[in-house]
């Protein structure tokens, strides 16, 4: 194994890490707002990927053109899921919340299989394809595009929650629901917004992934597991920390993958266990 291969892998791990981070950011945002883990997050991603895929197949829109549409669609989905299901179980026990989103995941995955069959599909010849050479390292253009766009979306999200009035209201709601309500913040609206934005994050990620990843009803499960680990690794509810955690997950995945491809996710899950046993609140989390 040469140093070149290691560097090559590290770069690709870093690029994937940014995409993982964006997926996890949505999950973390929702958790921070109301302490609910969205177990249907992977299925949201799957729907975003299918939406982009169909935009390309039926409307001949490139995934990058369809990206805003996929983001808007997922935002809407998030709001609808919040209004239809989540708002009814805000005060329910944790297990009921787990199973509400888990049942939703089963439903969405099976509905996708019902509507579109379990086939693997791929967008052929999107605008970004092939690879380019940077300082002697080959990088897949779709991967590079996805990483840069994910990073940009992450920056936008960070700007929104730290610099805009609505974002600050969102943070206030996350910190203390009642105090925020007393200050005149419509917390119900903030929750719906949080779900919308959380889902919109996977709307962006899904559209970017379609450029180089197969689309099938079960595609969300692997990404979702990695997203849970990323969120818990960074610390539940800490959105900026998911960026660092996502990159870490991406890097560990490729490094372990170099040495033993079958065990790459074992490396990621093992890292998670090692970290939380050492720091039960995650790397950057607070109790």
């Amino acid at each position: 194994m040469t140093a070149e291969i290691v560097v090559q892998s590290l770069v690709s791990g870093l690029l994937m890490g940014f995409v993982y981070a964006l997926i996890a950011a949505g999950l973390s945002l929702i958790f921070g707002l109301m302490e609910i883990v969205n177990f249907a997050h992977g299925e949201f991603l799957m729907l975003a990927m299918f939406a982009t895929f169909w935009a390309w197949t039926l409307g001949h829109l490139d995934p990058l053109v369809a990206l805003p549409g996929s983001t808007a669609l997922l935002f809407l989905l998030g709001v609808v899921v919040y209004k239809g299901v989540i708002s009814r179980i805000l005060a329910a026990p944790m297990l009921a919340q787990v199973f509400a989103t888990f049942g939703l995941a089963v439903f969405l995955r099976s509905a996708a299989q019902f509507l579109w069959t379990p086939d693997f599909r791929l967008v052929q010849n999107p605008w970004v394809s092939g690879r380019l050479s940077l300082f002697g390292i080959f990088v897949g253009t779709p991967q590079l595009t996805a990483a840069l766009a994910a990073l940009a979306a992450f920056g936008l999200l960070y700007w929104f929650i730290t610099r805009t009035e609505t974002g600050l209201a969102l943070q206030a709601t996350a910190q203390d629901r009642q105090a925020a309500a007393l200050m005149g913040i419509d917390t119900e609206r903030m929750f719906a917004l949080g779900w919308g934005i959380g889902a919109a994050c996977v709307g962006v990620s899904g559209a970017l992934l379609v450029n180089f990843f197969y689309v099938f009803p079960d595609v969300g499960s692997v990404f979702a597991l990695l997203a849970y680990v990323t969120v818990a690794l960074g610390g539940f509810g800490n959105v900026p920390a998911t960026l660092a955690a996502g990159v870490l997950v991406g890097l560990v995945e490729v490094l372990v993958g170099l040495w033993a491809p079958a065990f790459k996710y074992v490396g990621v899950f093992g890292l998670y266990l090692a970290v939380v046993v050492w720091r039960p609140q995650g790397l950057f989390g607070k109790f």
Partner: protein
Amino acid sequence: MRARRLRVALGVALGLALLAYPAVFTRPYPRDIMIKIFLYALLAQAWNLLGGYCGQISLGNAVFFGIGAYTSSALLMRWELSPWLGMLAGMGLAVLVSQAIGFPCFRLRGHYFAIATIAIGEIVQTIMINWDALGGARGLSLPIKPETFVNFQFHRAKWPYYYIALGLFACVFALTALVERSRPGYYFRAIREDADAASSLGIPLARYKLAAIALSAAFTALGGSFYAQYVLFIDPESVFPLSLSILICLVAVLGGVGTLWGPFLGAVILIPLSEATRVYFGGTGKAVDLMIYGALIVLVAVFQPAGLAGLLGRLGRGGRRPSAPLPAAARAGTG
């Protein structure tokens, strides 16, 4: 007093009905459904000891199920050991593994613990898929033996499996009832309600959480060994998946967590329901059965978060308190 007598009479009637079932239903299929009900009720009851009573939400109990299934099968194939002894060995190994998992992970709370158990489950499944000496991804096909009780194989009829499953479930049920009324049982619930308060009153948290996971692991492994002998084929995909861990938990949640009858009730409802949707809507590759299944889970979680035991409890009180607070058991997972 009358209520108590009524309950005893109902319990005896149910017991007799379950004993007489194979005499009435002689076809294999209805017996198979009941065997599955007992198996999942047993697994959910085992989960309930840890997740329901002690409040430690495990989404990785399939690890113990798989250990039970693989231990008895491997011992049978390598040394011709009777599966009954292999079952005990599997239970012992599962207890050891549970302590190794619990020791570091019980420092984690709420969602962190749940996700740690998912992570462990995924790690163990990947290891088993790549462990060639134990069949790897191809799994193990158990050798066919003459049908005797010692061999734990019965080919011509399902009734021996029926009574074994019923017996195993009855044992686990009785032991849970004992635990529920014992000092550890009260400690478990105290830890679930408020771990800090329990600790300040002198309950050693670590020791009792480890005891809860040991019980849970042993009974789950018992179910795993039974499954292996019943189906005679195991692979990592069937005995270690996350979906099994979640199904076990779901049966308990549907029935009512932290209640003695919840797991049985959950299995009685969920298993025939999933069989029925599978029979009437499945088999086309269209996944309509799973769509119904998923939608039902959402509906139960939204409208009956305390599980069916909560619903029955409410009806039992004559519907006088329609807005009765949730049973404390349903708030599990905070400690």
